């Protein structure tokens, strides 16, 4: 045990003695790991918030189906749907996209009585009358909008709106680029009357299949699409897995580039190290002891690098709001998001980053270390 402790202390001293090399390897590890940890944390945060939204949302989502895509559903069936046994609430919505000047905004139109209770993070108030809107924090900051200001917007129709409220920066990310207005205003803006992009159906527990049968009777001659909460939640998860997959693909390239960087950094002072190993072996060190010392050095440096990378990632998210990286996971946001980015640092990615760091440093040094520690002392000391 004393031997291993001695080697551990010596490994620590060696890292301190070779400060330049330690710093360079640590910087390489941080450059590789920090974006990875930050990205995973943001992805997890956004995914978490999405799933919370889904869980807090309706039990069933009804749309029309055109060419395999969601399409607007007419409101004429609304009363029939409300009458189905087990249906507690029916909420038609218009969700669309439109430009406010040069910036893309998500437009949500909903009847005032259907506004979810969760929407409370607003400075000012919610819309009450026609032409009144609540604007997302990102949009409001970008256009210096405050309550009482007016702006015009054109989709199918041109309309002038008055800002009566602004979503606060720590509200859900969906509020960042959102313009929230009455269902009627949204219909007028998009030039579509008597249709909704989807109908949210809230139901009594356990009634979904019966309601689905009743809906089939109502819509039997129409192409419609009915999705339940589990399905939506699955789509959300799938979507994030795809995004994470794309990010990971980019990351494999970065990882592959990182290995030679670590290799080069680990090679600093290699001739000095070879000589040192030769001296160690000449004075009775065994190959396994030399390798243990080198592995401990790599373990310590990877622990140090990964720890700093995790701390920097936390700083990146908390202080710099995931600048430059959040775009991967949240559409239509700027490089410097103006709203509070949701992020979750889970233990597994953090543990994985320690593993990756160790793997990188070992890959970078294992061959040269192995060759040095198995060579004859005479060759090494030359």
């Amino acid at each position: 045990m004393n031997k291993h402790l001695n080697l551990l202390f010596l490994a620590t001293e060696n890292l301190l003695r070779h400060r330049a090399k330690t710093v360079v390897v640590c910087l390489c590890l941080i450059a590789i790991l920090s974006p990875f940890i930050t990205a995973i944390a943001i992805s997890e945060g956004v995914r978490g918030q999405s799933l919370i939204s889904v869980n807090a949302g309706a039990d069933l989502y009804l749309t029309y189906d055109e060419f395999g895509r969601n399409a607007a559903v007419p409101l004429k069936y609304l009363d029939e749907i409300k009458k189905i046994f087990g249906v507690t609430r029916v909420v038609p919505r218009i969700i669309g996209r439109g430009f406010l000047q040069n910036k893309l905004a998500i437009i949500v139109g909903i009847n005032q009585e259907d506004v979810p209770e969760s929407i409370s993070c607003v400075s000012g108030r919610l819309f009450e009358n026609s032409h009144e809107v609540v604007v997302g924090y990102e949009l409001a900051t970008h256009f210096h909008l405050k309550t009482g200001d007016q702006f015009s917007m054109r989709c199918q129709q041109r309309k002038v709106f008055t800002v009566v409220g602004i979503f606060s920066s720590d509200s859900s990310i969906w509020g960042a680029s959102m313009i929230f207005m009455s269902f009627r205003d949204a219909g007028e803006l998009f030039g579509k009357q008597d249709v909704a992009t989807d109908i949210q159906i809230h139901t009594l527990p356990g009634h979904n299949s019966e309601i689905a049968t009743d809906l089939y009777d109502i819509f039997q001659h129409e192409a419609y699409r009915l999705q339940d909460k589990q399905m939506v939640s699955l789509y959300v998860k799938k979507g994030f897995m795809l995004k994470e997959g794309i990010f990971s693909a980019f990351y494999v390239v970065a990882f592959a580039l990182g290995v030679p960087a670590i290799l080069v950094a680990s090679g600093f002072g290699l001739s000095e190290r070879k000589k040192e190993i030769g001296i160690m072996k000449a004075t009775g060190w065994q190959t396994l002891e030399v390798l243990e010392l080198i592995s401990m050095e790599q373990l310590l440096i990877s622990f140090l690098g990964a720890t700093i990378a995790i701390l920097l990632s936390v700083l990146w998210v908390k202080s710099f709001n995931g600048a430059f990286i959040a775009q991967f996971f949240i559409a239509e946001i700027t490089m410097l998001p103006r709203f509070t980015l949701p992020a979750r640092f889970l233990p597994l990615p953090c543990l994985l980053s320690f593993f990756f760091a160790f793997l990188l440093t070992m890959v970078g040094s294992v061959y040269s270390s192995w060759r040095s520690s198995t060579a004859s002392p005479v060759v090494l000391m030359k």
Partner: protein
Amino acid sequence: MIRTEHLCKSYSHSSQYEIRAIYDINVTISKNSFVVFNGPSGSGKTTLLNVMGTLDRPTAGKVFLYGEEITPFSDIALARLRREKIGFIFQDFHLIPRLTSWENVAYPLVPRGIGYKERFERAKLLLEKMGLGDRLDHTSEELSGGQQQRVAIARALINNPEIIIADEPTSNIDEETSVQIRELLNELKARGVTILVATHDAMFEKVADVVFKMKNGRIL
């Protein structure tokens, strides 16, 4: 104590030709003797000491230590032999540059599991005996050649070896220090240590029990 039979060591420079560093060496060295290998540069002194000291493996022939053939020993067994029985003093000192004197001396004790305090005490004691008590925390760059060689000798002695192998121990140092080192090796011999020295220095022949003259890889 140490015996060689038809010991050969060659280095191949390409597939076409090889250089014979030592050839058909047969020597017997008895315990507690002071043996000097003398000869010009390239005569094979260093190679012979390296092979006898287990730092290098022979191309052919056998090495016996205490009657046991050590040539087929594994690297682990040879490393154990070096740790327990042999101390080396090199011409170029071979100190680790960033370590202090005492850390260099105590370095062989690290894998033996000896604690920091004991390592320091043992290194300090040896360095004080070498007259370097005031240079404990100096790195090798801050020491003269003679001081570095004395640190190297202290390191060779830290494991209380039965054999000291010294390769040109006085070639890079001044005359005054050379005298001290010769006296020191003589003292070690008096304490029962077997000393093997490869040297050009004719003064060693005066203190040696046996002198082997070498030329072109052979003992004359």
